[in-house]
């Protein structure tokens, strides 16, 4: 009996550092007390002391091992306002816009027509290959009794989707683009935080957009793009609240529906909560995400094993690995791109964008 108690005491001491010292001392004292009274105890008393008082922590960790469910992550909602384009290969594609001919002039008797002209403007962009690799030994796969390592390819695909959200966000939410648009001043950019008044100013600015020749553009559908920090504020602005005079009194919803509010979790709010208005991509290709034709999204791949079993048998994990190293290799890849201009970065048409720095109330 004393030997058993000494083993338990040694096991308890192994927890030093995991369990706070005073608590550990208390448990050791209790163990010794138990040992000293062992002759006076019957079997029932001993069982009670073992199972209910002091040993739950010592044995429980060996009985249960499990991972918590993975965190849920915020995902981008950019497909509603980003213009999708495709490239046939890795060479840059050219995209043009033709200007409109001018209006009419009065023609006097026997006078010649006054000529007008049109001109094209052009930008180029292409796609690049982005990838990440992960490898484990076949022994690790075999030891993975909870199956968590085997989930890695799916987790890599999710990581690639998160990366793409951030990539798209960086096409327009970055210091260079903001500086370029801010330099254009009002009505291309504003300073107001997201309030009903400032949103009205932004929407009005979008309705004043003209092309390069000064022709007034018809923008009918707008998208509000905000960081998560402005989510509640946007909901409050667009819904009927008492401060707007009750149900049906908020006219803003006629110009911008709640369905067209998009949360971009990657907008940088370190300094201030900036927000953007986008024209619908069917009307203006404001920010373009290019994809390689035939490559609609990230792919996860695994290196094919070069091991061939000649005789005997081996676990499946061994047959997944590399002949030389025993490694099992996975990779995730995507082929995407956008404009990478020195001033506008990924904003392919600034006429479809309104930026507010959120630096005034």
């Amino acid at each position, binding site marked *: 009996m004393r030997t058993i108690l000494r083993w338990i005491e040694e096991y308890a001491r192994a927890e030093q550092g995991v369990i706070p010292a005073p608590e550990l001392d208390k448990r050791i004292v209790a163990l010794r007390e138990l040992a000293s009274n062992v002759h006076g105890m019957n079997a029932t008393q001993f069982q009670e002391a073992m199972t209910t008082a002091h040993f739950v922590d010592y044995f429980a960790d060996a009985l249960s091992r499990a991972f918590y469910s993975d965190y849920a992550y915020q995902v981008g909602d950019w497909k509603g306002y980003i213009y999708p384009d495709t490239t046939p290969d890795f060479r840059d594609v050219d995209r043009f816009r033709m200007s409109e001919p001018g209006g009419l002039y009065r023609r006097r008797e026997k006078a010649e027509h006054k000529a007008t002209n049109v001109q094209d*403007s052009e930008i180029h962009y292409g796609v690049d290959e982005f990838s990440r690799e992960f490898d484990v030994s076949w022994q690790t796969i075999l030891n993975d009794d909870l199956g968590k390592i085997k989930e890695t390819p799916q987790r890599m695909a999710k990581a690639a989707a998160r990366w793409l959200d951030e990539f798209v966000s960086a096409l327009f939410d970055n210091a260079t683009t903001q500086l370029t648009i801010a330099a254009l*001043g009002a*009505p291309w950019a504003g300073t107001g935080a997201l309030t*009903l*008044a400032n949103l009205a100013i932004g929407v009005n600015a979008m309705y004043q957009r003209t092309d390069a*020749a000064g022709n007034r553009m018809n923008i009918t559908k707008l998208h509000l793009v905000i960081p998560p920090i402005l989510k509640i504020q946007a909901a409050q602005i667009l819904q009927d609240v008492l401060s707007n005079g009750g149900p049906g009194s908020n006219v803003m919803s006629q110009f911008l529906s709640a369905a067209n509010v998009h949360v971009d979790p990657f907008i940088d709010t370190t300094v201030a909560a900036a927000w953007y208005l986008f024209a619908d991509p069917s009307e203006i290709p404001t920010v373009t995400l290019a994809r390689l034709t035939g490559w609609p999204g990230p792919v996860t791949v695994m290196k094919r094993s070069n091991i061939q079993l000649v005789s005997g048998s081996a676990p499946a994990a061994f047959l997944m690995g590399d002949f030389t190293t025993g490694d099992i290799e996975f990779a995730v890849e995507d082929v995407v791109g956008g404009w990478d201009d020195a001033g506008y970065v990924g904003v392919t048409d600034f006429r479809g964008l309104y930026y507010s720095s959120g630096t005034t*109330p």
Partner: protein
Amino acid sequence: MADKKQQPTIQRIEPGSKAMEQYLSVGYGMTVDQAKLIIAERDKNPALWPYEEYKKAKAMLAAFDAKPVAVSKRKGSTLK
């Protein structure tokens, strides 16, 4: 398309200008003089104007003279 040879043809609205006042009044529903009056009157007698109007007037005056700035700390290039 964004063509750097062609500058936007809408005249840029300068901070502090009459055009800026009109541009902002769309959202705030007041002129600069009205905003100044609301602030002055409420400072003397808070019962004269509701706090929401006072706040709006202050916001308009702040926006009237302000220039948009870049606030993001992210780098420009998308090619990491």
